[in-house]
């Protein structure tokens, strides 16, 4: 359990990281560093997007699978690491 804590803390302490959250397969946020309403919003939207992205990859090539999803916007970058049951979401402000 402490390793989990350490990992998450380390990720959060990287340069430019605004927030980190862990979401389960139903879209429920398990662990988050942001406030509740923002977390719920991100969780709901990104969860659906990840599922769509995954199915896209699998449709094109059934042997393939989604490993990582990166969304770059004007203000920051949202990175999603999917797993069978959980999603790790990090919002970072890339330094330019």
């Amino acid at each position, binding site marked *: *359990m402490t*390793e*989990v804590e350490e*990992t*998450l803390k*380390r*990720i959060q302490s*990287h*340069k*430019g*990281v605004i927030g980190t959250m*862990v979401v*389960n397969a*139903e*879209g*429920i946020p*398990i*662990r988050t560093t942001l406030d509740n309403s923002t977390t*719920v919003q991100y969780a*709901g939207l990104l969860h659906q997007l990840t599922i769509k992205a995954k199915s896209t990859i699998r449709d094109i090539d059934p042997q393939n699978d989604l*490993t*990582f999803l*990166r969304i*770059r916007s004007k203000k920051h*970058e949202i*990175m999603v*690491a999917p*797993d*069978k*049951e*959980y999603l*790790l979401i*990090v919002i*970072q402000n*890339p*330094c*330019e």
Partner: protein
Amino acid sequence: MEIVYVYLKKRSEFGKQCNFSDRPADLNIDILPNPELAAQFVERNPVDTGTQCSVSMSEHEANTERFEMESRGVNHVEGGWPKDVNPLELEQTIRFRKKVEKDENYINAIMQLGLIMEHCIKQNNAIDIYQEYFDDEEEVEVTEEASSAKTINVFRDPQEIRRTATHLSWHPDGNRKLAVAYSCLDFQRAPVGMSHESYIWDLENPNRPEMALKPSSPLVTLEYNPKDSHVILGGCYNGQIACWDTRKGSLVAELSTIEFSHRDPVYGSIWLQSKTGTECFSASTDGQVMWWDIRKISEPTEVVILDITKKEQLESALGAISLEFEPTLRNPFYPKNFLTVGDWTARIWSEDSRESSIMWTKYHMAYLTDGAWSPVRPAVFFTTKMDGTLDIWDFVFKQSDPALSLKVCDEALFCLRVQDNGCLIACGSQNGTTTLLEVSSGLSTLQRNERNIASSMFERETRREKILEARQKEMRLKEKGKAEGKDDDQRDEELATNLEEMVAQAEKEFFDIVFTELKKKEVEAMAKKTKPKKASLEMDEEVEGDYTGEEEEVSDEKSV
């Protein structure tokens, strides 16, 4: 054949109810076939008829009713929690979360994901993947796409009785809204029951207007106050000026008194760029221009009576129909040059040359109703015509024809307004439909060197006109001098030689033009054999009319 069958009914029985009774069929007339008539027909053998072996089908078109849409928001509540956990209760959610965190899968998953994630985060921090490497190099000129414009949206007058959209005004901030004034411009032919309302439309919602303005008499013109975007000024059909505050509602906030207002419909109104932001002008066909302060709208601050010879904006009216003060019709880049639209042409004038316009379009088939400069490109302007077409002129590209001519609708277009970014144009038509068009980027972005080219063109034309004017003045002076000093032979001689030269030159040019026109007309009128001679005669007069500059000289010569 005489066939007579008589129906009898007693007068006393008229209006009596009918009592029907059954009786067997009664043969009244029997016309037997007359074999002699057969002699008048010729038998046709073989008979030619077409047949088809396929399935017979028919084609139908159906136009569906306009689909009305409305945007609404949906409020989401937190979901996804298992049934036994109530998302609102903090204890339960915390308990649930703690439970999950103890799961072994969770721990493994996080370790894995954490690794991948860290890699990407570090990558982000290391380099900027969107860095622009070739910023310094000059942009290669992209091949120009053909200029085009397409209709984005159409706003229809929701009233049943159609009225003309007489004036449009864009909202000053952000341009998301458009105010349209509706009225019936035919003198005293406004149908009974026609609504006086004018509407404010939101561009996103073409089905219903956002707000209605209710004056006592229909509005002919409408303007947003550029300083205060909630205030709208309207000029009414009965000559009054009215003022609205969109925050307060649809009824008139202020109204000018009838005694002090115009006698004719107010055709033009415009806000002044004053410090207070509350002053405006209004103009109408009764020949007056009034200056108002909306804080005290019961009477005008000042009245100016217009003469035809001064400040005529549209050559077709005795009074002012459109107001030009500060950049409206003036070219926003070159305030000395302004555009007027009237009779069947559009002309560009320069303040320096008063006698005639420096550039003008050819005479069109349909009457031109409105024109506007593009606020982005100095060489582009738009005109609307009575046959429903919108012309976009770009005189850097082509001077004789519009760069783009679009048929917007079947009815006449009455007014036109360009949005400040130069991309969107709104035009209002006779049956109240306002169409929103988007112009292609080629016509709405400033081209390289365009300012220089446009300014050099304007200067060149102005100079040409000045030279012509000077020439004319010279001629007139000489005329006068000659008429007064009849015994001055030398002057006569000089004049004569000068005149002869000029006559020769003018004649030559004149006939050149006539011949080219003649040729054109002959080619066109090939079918009408009697007409060519007549056409050439007519055309002489026509060309004389067109040929403004030299024509005066020629007629001077002829009178000498």
